[in-house]
């Protein structure tokens, strides 16, 4: 079971969190101006790296806040966590 450091609450067991997908995918501001390929890229295309991956987590059974984490998909080590809007 992972030990994840919520940037607001500190280290907590993985069971308190839920995964929320890849991080740093900004919603386009003027969606109507996007062509189908651009919209599909935002909607469907996700990285699937072997190694470092930036993703969103929700401290669901804690402070209920979303935050970002950099996690290694090979050994599951969470290298860092940081608040939304921050860069690691």
């Amino acid at each position, binding site marked *: *079971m992972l030990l994840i450091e919520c940037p607001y609450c500190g280290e907590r067991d993985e069971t308190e969190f839920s995964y929320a997908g890849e991080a740093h995918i900004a919603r386009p501001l*003027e969606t109507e101006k996007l062509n*189908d390929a651009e919209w599909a890229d935002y*909607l469907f295309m996700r990285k699937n790296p072997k190694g470092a991956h930036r993703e969103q987590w*929700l401290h669901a059974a804690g402070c209920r806040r*979303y935050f970002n984490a950099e996690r290694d998909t090979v*050994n599951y080590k969470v290298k860092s966590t940081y608040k*939304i*809007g921050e860069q690691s």
Partner: protein
Amino acid sequence: MSKNYRLAEGGRINREHTVNFQFNGKSYSGFAGDTLASALLANGVHMVGRSWKYHRPRGILSAGAEEPNAIFQLEKGKYTVPNARGTQVELYDNLDASSVNCWPSLDFDLMSINSKFARMMPAGFYYKTFMWPKSMWMKYEHFIRKASGLGESPRQNDPDRYEHAHAHCDLLVVGGGIAGLTAALAAGRAGARVMLVDEQAEFGGLTLNSHAQIEGKSASQWIEDTVAELQAMEEVTLLNRATAFGYHDYNFLTVNQRLTDHLPLSERKSGREKVWQIRAHQVVLATGAAERPLVFANNDRPGVMLASAVSTYVNRYAVKPGNRVVIFTNNDSAYQTALDCKAAGIEIAVVVDARAQSSSELANTVRSAGIEVLNGSAVVDTSGGKHVSSVKVMNLAADGKSVSGSVKNISCDLLAVSSGWSPVVHLSSQSGAKAIWNDDQAMFLPGTPTQAQVSVGAANGTLDLKNSLHQAALAGNAAAKACGFDSDMAAPSAEALASEAILPLWQVPSIHASGRGPKAFVDMQNDVGVADIQLAAREGFHSVEHVKRYTAMGFGTDQGKLGNINGMGVLAQTLGQSIAETGTTTYRPNYTPVSFGAIAGQNLGDELFDPVRKTAMHAWHEENGAEFENVGQWKRPWYYPRNGESLDEAVNRECLATRESVGILDASTLGKIEVVGRDAAKFLEMIYTNNWMKLEVGKARYGFMLGEDGMVMDDGVTVRIAENHFYMHTTTGGAAGVLAWMERWLQTEWPELEVFLTSVTDHWATAAVVGPNSRRVVSAVCDGIDFSADNFKFMDSRVGKIGDLECRVNRISFSGELAYEVNVPANYGRYMWEELMQAGAEYNITPYGTETMHVLRAEKGYVIVGQDTDGSVTVEDLGMSWALSKTKTDYIGKRSLNRPDTLRKDRKQLVGLVTEDPKTVIPEGAQLVDNPGAPMPVPMAGHVSSSYYSACCGHSIAMALVKGGHHRTGETVYAPLANDRVIKATITDTNFYDKEGAKANA
């Protein structure tokens, strides 16, 4: 036939305490401190079971967790335990043990006929013979299960209690042998918080058998003193009978502690097992090593035993496993067994050593004791019926590849074997360190750690005492230092013992062609022999993971602890490659089997497995005979049968009563979220597909939420309570997801919006009062509200009072009737409900449940998200485009509504269906086709999502998602069913009742 094989003195048993027990219905006795296995051996019982596939007689092979043969069913009825390893079962008064896998009895086993046909049951036999055709598997399975099953699972509820505990420590030491104790001592003396867990009752591990000296005293005295010192330390916790069975991420280990299994049934008062979930800064693995058996013809006969096990039985339990022993080894350690046997008065026929020479100090001590040693030799076969009576010995070539010369027959009743040692690298491997093969030591060693852990002692391949103690002290010091404690304990002193190199011998060469001659077993529990592995290799299975699955090697309750390394050796030899190239199978939790009870802990039954959510009116529903339906965690009234009514009869009555007069529904379970703040309306503009900015205070509106993919995600009515205060309803099942989803948009995309979300589902009790007389009922109950049609319109929201209690009334309808939803704080839910029931009595107010609710809404074509939608349905598909704003430039999912796939003309669209026969109700989920006679595969036109009998319409009604359905009104579709029946239906619109909507607007 009970014989006494107990030595006159010695052992760590309590001879003052005789323990009576039963095995296969016969009475025996042993002593406190015995295991079931040692007590049986003391009574001369070796043969304890039959093998899995061939039903060959099998005896006690080991003295520990690795035991493949001595597997028992303990106790009967609700206390029964299957597949207990007799080598680890502590003997207690009136223990009732029986063999597994013997049918009808141990001595006369019908299935042993399999043994005669062994050649016809090679590797992959079950797959090849029974798995095709698939339809026949069910028939074979019954017989195969009976023939090949191990123990029987309990059929009654488990009477015991199980617990979970969480712990944190600086250092967790797994294994309480001398290495583990030393590491714990070093860190403990430094002041670190240490936990030490060991699977046995007594700490000390294999060294409990040893005559060695540590710090100038006997090993057992040193163990006793060290345990006492550790126990006196405040920050140190010692857990015995506690098996670390899983090593997970972030140094999280799971340990199962058995609290009562060693006690007679009558004395078991506390919980039976406790699973410790331990998060440790540092971990020291001192899990020891397991001796390997040698592989030769008929090596599975009772009376064949690991050499170390022989020493354990002699030294620790004061039991003679035989009167005349042959020792067969390829390494030094079994020489100690020769000395142990001699000291116990066991006659030693000969030591057969595969190595051409043996001249270590230990080997020479054995020779000086007058024991004959045959170097460059091997046991090639055994004889005997249900017990070994003699062995055949031949000369072995120096490279171990062939045997030659005359066959010597040597009589014996015990054959002690050793093929070297395998460090118990299970936990280390589970932690992520890939085990590495070491050619010199002929063993897998722990790999490079990926977590804060280190293996010491035998677990690290270090088999001698002095070096083990040294490593352990270093590891204990290092772990303490890593946690900020100053630690520099010197290793306890012990004498070094030089040993000679092992001669790896994965199989004794057979004098027969491959697949001929007697079987030589690699995995005794699963009856996998050398020939099976060779066959698998010939058939093209070269990966060790594939060979494992094809032969079933390592799949038993012992998980191949004894056999796997030998099997890999045989496979490597067959493929002409090294073991390093062959590799090992993956080590996975659990190290030894863990009971379901331990895993479940207290999360059991209706009460604690999952929360049960009940509304404030739940007790009233129960008192009034409601049948309940589970909706997520909620218990919702399903229908209220009267006088033995069936579901259909009750629902027909409830529907008619509601449409003709008035009905009442507990709607408390709908999700309720308060959306508050300066930007609340702006936020809803993005969340919902329709417009919210101009909604008046005191008005409600129905809305769809889409996923960003444009598909319907949730729906519900939201009320504007104040300028910046909305009261949102979601579906019952969608509430939690919608809240998290809205939070995500607010926190990650629009942090500039000032909006606060609060879940208030549990804070409000809601009663829906539905039907032509509903206005009369709510008017009688709720004061301070003008209920006249002109002043309280459809989709209006008002605040009033029920007595002194404030209530909110929303005029919304999920039935097409005039209807009001009355909300009060949840604690007053039953009060409100009873007031409404009382006021409605003169109108025959009828409580109804979810089933009637479904029928009423289907009669009006109202969809249920999650029933009529499945994540691939758009608002347009539902025929509800009126709910899509034409003026907003953006909302979640909007852009996806213009994707080519969303614009397809042949999308499945929601339609109504009316069956040809008005009484026939199409099953929900039924597939629809245009031509039931078309050749297969028949093209699918769609499927039925909702289907009921409508008493109000007088015929069945259904909703279906049909390709291009919006343009197919009046056409015929067919629902072919599994029983060859075909239901014919006509496509209609989805509004079956009161098409003009006059009733809701009354």
